[in-house]
């Protein structure tokens, strides 16, 4: 099943994408002729079994990888046509990533971790500090700004990860199993936070998840199976 790419206000447009990996002489088809359109302001859950290509699709949308065939456009810009250097700059401006294992720098405090994407901008130190304070306040961690990741709980670390993802006010927030390593309570807090970002701040979010409970928080869910979008229930 393919998504209708003709909707107006479409932020993410994936057209006829194939992704093939090579292991020796063997070609492994991860995605085949995939189409997906995500309107601005949508909270999309991307579900599917392990190895179905969810993370690969997320990587293509986030400009971390390139399709073997087809096009990926974000806000009208062809991501698959950008050079490595252009892609790095584009990611810094448009994409916020939230990872399953938080992926914080253990040698930096929470506020320094959140500040990382801002180091790539021309903001002054004072301006960066303001943005960091705002992002930490939004995730409810202002009081933990000076703490190192090892002194934070899993849920708190993921909230720092989200603050890092949103601190540049990106066009799109990509979350790869953001609750996959958390217990139910901490996971619910993270999902509440993502919902609030979507509802209150209009942030467009694409979230990969195995968990139907997490997917239920999204405004729309699509399923990926054997490299193709197989079902798209309206939430």
């Amino acid at each position, binding site marked *: 099943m393919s998504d209708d790419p003709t909707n107006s206000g479409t932020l993410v447009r994936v057209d006829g994408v194939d992704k093939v990996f090579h292991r020796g002489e063997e070609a492994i088809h991860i995605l085949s002729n995939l189409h997906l359109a995500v309107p601005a302001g949508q909270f999309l859950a991307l579900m599917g079994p392990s190895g179905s290509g969810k993370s690969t699709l997320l990587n293509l949308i986030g400009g971390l990888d390139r399709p073997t065939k087809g096009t990926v456009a974000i806000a009208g810009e062809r991501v698959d046509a950008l050079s*490595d250097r252009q892609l790095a700059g584009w990611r810094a401006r448009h994409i916020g990533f939230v990872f399953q294992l938080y992926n914080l720098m253990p040698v*930096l405090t929470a506020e320094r971790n959140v500040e990382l994407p801002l180091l790539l901008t021309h903001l002054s130190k004072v301006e960066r500090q303001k943005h960091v304070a705002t992002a930490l306040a939004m995730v409810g961690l202002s009081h933990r700004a000076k703490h190192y990741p090892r002194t934070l709980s899993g849920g708190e670390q993921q909230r720092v990860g989200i603050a890092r993802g949103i601190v540049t006010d990106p066009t799109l927030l990509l979350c790869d199993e953001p609750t996959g390593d958390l217990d139910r309570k901490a996971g619910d807090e993270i999902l509440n936070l993502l919902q609030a970002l979507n509802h209150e701040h209009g942030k467009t979010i694409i979230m990969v998840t195995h968990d139907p409970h997490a997917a239920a928080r999204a405004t729309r869910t699509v399923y990926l199976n054997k490299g193709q979008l197989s079902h798209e229930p309206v939430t």
Partner: protein
Amino acid sequence: MKFAHLIWGNLMRKKLRTALTLLTILVAFVLFGMLCAIKQALAGGVELARADRIVVRHKVSIIQLLPESYKARMARLPGVALAVHQTWFGGVYQDPKNFFMQTPVEPEEFLSMHPEFILAPAQKKAWLETRTGAVVGRTTAERFHWKIGDKIPITSPIWGRKTWEFDLVGIFDGRDKGTDTTPMFFRYDYFDEFRQSQNWGKGLVGWYTIRVKDPAKAAEVARLVDQEFENSPAETKTEPEGAFVQAWANQIGNIALIVAAILAAVFFTILLVTGSTMSQAVRERIGELGVLKAIGFTNGQLLRLVLAESCLLTVLGGGLGLGLAWVIIARGDPTGGLLPRFHLATGDLLVGAGLCLALGLLTGIFPALQAMRLRVADALRRM
């Protein structure tokens, strides 16, 4: 500068490993500083040698003496502006380990020949008026806590095998940083008078220093001097002051080559140790580097981050090592007189600083290229 906390944080990630690597680099640069100071001490006089001075010694060996009467004959040769002589005294102060150079000289002419020794006019006047007077360099005066007016007993195993007593009338300083301020000079007339009483060695001197009128004709004057004393009982060998000092230093060996060989071995080892540390440090955080790339760091920025880290490591270790070497060397000649020009030259410090940076770049470049070439998706899977 805005990446400073990230670079510092990564460096401090494994404190023990960083501390041990820093210590290794520090020791290497202390060794570098010490060897440079030894090289300066043994061969540094060559750099300070003047082009307008040539040295005349006995053709057979420096320990063979020359007649004092040669002085007048040298002075008559064309191109010679001034000729002065010195003689090795070989004395010690109180204990054999308190060795430093002493030579008898004719004060007025000697000071004119060696403007690198700065002596106050009042002290020069006192020296000219005191037959038993001696002047000593600042280093030796401070070493033995001597002050003007002291009576200095010096025992010579060569001249009379007795203790000579000198009146300290002056303390001189060096005009240039590398000037040797350890020797003591005393009056030739006092020295020769004693030799006359012993009926041994009177009228003989160790070597001559000649100032030529035109430095461009120094070689020609040297040839004239040697021709003048050809076929005499005491034939001469005349050479530029630099060559004389170099020959003196070469008695030990090719100092520069020995120092270079030791340092090459040390720095090759440091290259391997630091390179291994940096490679391991980068391998351990492939995933984190992937995250940095994901949030928008470019390949070039990652390359510079890793290089900055390796350079910070070597500059810190090397800087501390050079600083420690400087402190040790500033305390003076550790041999008690054998290395009078023992000091760390500015040029060697600059070479050391350059080595720190080069070491950082060399040890960081391969891990930095590895970080730069990471594929983000692959790196993130390794978190």
